[in-house]
């Protein structure tokens, strides 16, 4: 067998093993190790690759963004900022049919700017927004669908763990990736809100029957300020710091973490115990993501050694595949992997395969990153293993709403994501414009 064939076979083997339930970093590492051994015919090279991946894999300064932004996101959730933003948004959209749905989307978008994870968004907003919508006679599928759909904003609007992970595999700057995520994130937010607004006008039964607008409880100016100032301050520190160049993304993460800690303390939401739990949680997340990245670097070295990315490039030329065809293949591949894999694993598996090809077509790698993250995130909403949907089901504790309801509810939002993705693919300026 030629090296390229072995390389291609190993990609298939990894996907199959991951589907079977093998730990993803172990599948990546083990298959890459064996492939390098077979291709080179010598064990020494395989052991050397493994040694380098394990001992030098995490020695990169930008990797520190992972623990720092994770700490910040967890502290922000504990401080109850999500609930606050939701209360204010709800007030603003109250008069409209479906207003509470729009408020959920809006609050998720703002919350996304202070957290990096969709999981955090999904569990916070399931607890606040779903019971509220049910009380006002909204359709249960719509209620959970809105929360599921808008939770993906957490990983597109910066700071985002997925943008960080992409920037590692593609060697792009974390700061640039963050800035590039802003417009696509807002675009998706606007598309969701528009969908709810239009449905409310044309097909109100989709939202629910006999919808109640709830009691009118105006918020005083002080309450509004109290609920918004901490979040706005955090966004200014983190995104403002990166945008002005005053802070590197790593420093922005550290400053954001400290600020979130101070907010939580001032709100009296912080005990020694919860601080310790937050730190342990952060450590677990950091260790599992960085170990995954370490093994993914071994995998991408193996692909390069097998010459697979170049071969893919040649195949493209012999079949005369153009930009459109390549993007269709890419998106379909991500949707397929998204049925079972988590977003980080999809990014780490597909990006090393396609990056040479995309660069060869003269496309921006920043744009490619946004496309990848959104494409991989659609999988959070699709069965059989849409992680966001599982999180919602498990934090809901309502036997009346089944997992099937969550998937059905999330479906229109997954379709909207796909449409926005197509728009972003067609107009790269939407993601790269902000950098110039």
């Amino acid at each position, binding site marked *: 067998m030629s090296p390229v064939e072995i390389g291609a076979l190993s990609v298939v083997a990894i996907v199959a093993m991951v589907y079977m339930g093998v*730990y993803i970093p172990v599948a990546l590492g083990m298959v890459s190790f064996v492939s390098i051994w077979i291709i080179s015919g010598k064990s020494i090279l395989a052991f050397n690759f493994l*040694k380098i991946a394990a001992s030098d894999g995490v020695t990169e300064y930008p990797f*520190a963004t992972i623990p720092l932004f994770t*700490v910040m996101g967890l502290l922000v959730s504990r401080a109850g900022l999500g609930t606050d933003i939701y209360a204010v948004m709800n007030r603003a959209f109250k008069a409209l049919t479906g207003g509470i749905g729009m408020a959920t989307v809006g609050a998720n978008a703002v919350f996304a700017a202070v957290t990096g994870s969709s999981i955090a968004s*999904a569990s916070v907003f399931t607890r606040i927004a779903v019971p509220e919508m049910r009380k006002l006679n909204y359709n249960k599928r719509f209620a959970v669908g809105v929360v599921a759909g808008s939770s993906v904003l957490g990983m597109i609007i910066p700071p985002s763990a997925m943008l960080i992970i992409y920037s590692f595999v593609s060697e792009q700057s974390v700061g640039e990736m963050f800035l590039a995520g802003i417009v696509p994130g807002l675009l998706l937010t606007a598309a969701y809100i528009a969908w709810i607004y239009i449905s409310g006008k044309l097909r109100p039964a989709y939202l629910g029957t006999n919808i109640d607008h709830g009691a009118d409880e105006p918020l005083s100016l002080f309450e509004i300020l109290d609920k918004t100032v901490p979040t706005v301050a955090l966004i200014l520190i983190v995104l403002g710091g990166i945008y002005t160049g005053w802070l590197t993304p790593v420093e922005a993460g550290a400053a954001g973490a*400290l600020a979130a800690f101070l907010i939580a303390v001032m709100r009296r939401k912080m005990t020694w115990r919860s601080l310790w739990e937050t730190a*342990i949680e952060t450590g677990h997340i950091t*260790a599992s993501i960085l170990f995954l990245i370490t093994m993914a670097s071994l995998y991408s070295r193996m692909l390069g050694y097998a010459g697979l990315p170049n071969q893919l490039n040649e195949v493209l030329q012999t079949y005369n595949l153009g930009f459109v065809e390549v993007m269709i293949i890419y998106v379909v591949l991500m949707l397929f992997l998204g049925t079972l894999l988590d977003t980080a694993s999809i990014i780490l598996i597909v990006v090393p395969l396609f990056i040479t090809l995309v660069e060869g077509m003269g496309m921006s790698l920043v744009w490619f990153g946004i496309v990848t993250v959104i494409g991989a995130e659609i999988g959070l909403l699709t069965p059989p293993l849409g992680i966001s949907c599982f*999180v919602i089901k498990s934090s809901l504790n309502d036997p009346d709403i089944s997992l099937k309801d969550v998937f059905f509810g999330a479906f229109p939002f997954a379709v909207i994501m796909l449409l926005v993705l197509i728009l972003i693919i067609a107009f790269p300026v939407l993601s790269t414009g902000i950098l110039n």
Partner: protein
Amino acid sequence: MNDILHRITAPVVSVAIVSNAVGTLVIFLLVGIMNVDIIARGVFHAPLRGVVEIVIFSLILIVFLQLPDVVRSNRLTRSDGFLVFAETRHPNFAHYASRVIDLASGIFMGLIAWTVFPEFVESIETCHFITPPEFGAPPTGEFFTDLAAAFARCEYFGTPGIFTAPWWPAKLAIFFSVTLCCIIFLLKALTGKRKPVLVDESESPV
């Protein structure tokens, strides 16, 4: 047999938990140092030296000190869909499949431990803690002077004159971590305690 396994499990679990706690302290340290640097630089125009090196060093400690606990608490990234599905139809098959996976993972971790061990030995030998150095000043006989001299001899990372740290503690952390992960995986495979569970919201990082 089971009795022996249980007796081994308890201390292994406590080592993983203690190491996790040490890693957690490093996170606090990281947040603290970075903020001191931002303030020192922004307000007093006097950035700390060697922050980049400290950050990299603490990353190694955080990841590798906490990895065994990640393995212990079943939080290493995986896609459980197939196993959970198999559990409902063929519980025995699912049970053995997950034990085989743990066994394979243990062997893989063992391979990593085997390749990084020489790295650790090499990096600590450069210090000449016990053997006399090949060149440079001979040992004086004064314990602390000699110890300091030994540390200065170590293979280092960082930039000389700004910040350097010996490599061996990092290499030791890596070797310790993957060895412990290997043991924990093997114990899981032998005892077969783990049942596949779907994502619990506190569980999945991404």
